[in-house]
């Protein structure tokens, strides 16, 4: 039996996709039954979403000549 600590550690380290199938199924089963671990996973996902929202504001910062300047420098 996987504990809440096992499941949330695996979710948090991002190791789930590399885990063996049996373990992935055990995590899925636990998540289906445990609302606390589901809430934990949603928190983790919400943190990632807001980080991506913050990053989206960053990539529009450089002015339009950003790329041209780099190409200019590379051609020197």
């Amino acid at each position: 039996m996987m504990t809440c600590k096992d499941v949330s550690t695996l979710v948090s380290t991002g190791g789930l996709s590399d885990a063996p199938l049996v373990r992935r199924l055990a995590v899925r089963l636990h998540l289906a039954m445990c609302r606390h671990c589901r809430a934990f996973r949603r928190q983790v996902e919400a943190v990632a979403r807001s980080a991506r929202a913050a990053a989206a504001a960053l990539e529009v910062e450089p002015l339009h000549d950003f790329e041209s300047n780099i190409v200019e420098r590379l051609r020197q």
Partner: protein
Amino acid sequence: MSAAGPANITEATRSGRVWLGMMEDVVPLDDAYLERLRRRDPEALRSIVDGQGRRLYRAARGMGFSKSEAEDLVQDVFVTFIESIERFEGRAQVGTWLFGILHHKSQERWRTVVREELNDPVDQVFESQFDARGSWIRPPAAPDQHVGAREAADAIRDCVDGLSPLQREVFQLRQVEELSAADVSKIVGQTITHIGVLLHRARTKLRSCLEGKGWGRSR
């Protein structure tokens, strides 16, 4: 296979399909295209800069560099890439390779080889959420669905300052750039297991910082 190669990427660009950074993470650069880069063919240079420049800039900013530092850094990354293109020779995905150069350049700027402590006090923060049997003592609250995207983005910008440089970089590469643990492991020169530890620490710190800002508090 040239069918999926950069000759077609250029065609795709011409035909109006956007050539974004994610794409050539799966498309290795072919020899003809590398040769054009080596000769500093303007069109080839332009397509790689268009495809990767802003993504690298975004990562540099996410790692904590100022606007002008990030612009400088990205220029340096491309200069090094073109100068060392013989060593690239299509053996890595270009996105991963460029992020690897960015990693080294950022360490040069910080004038330090960033090492991660074996233990971080935040491990205790995570541990303290569970009892001896591994059950939640203080169950997490489901995140507030009503927090706006802008508000959330503002909150997280403050919170990332609390991360160590390596935690911040790993969080950025895994969560924002959505690179695999294996790729990030190559970029920063740490084991895949340790990438997991770093991501876990970053997430724990961020959740705790955001909770301190009243985020996801149950009402």
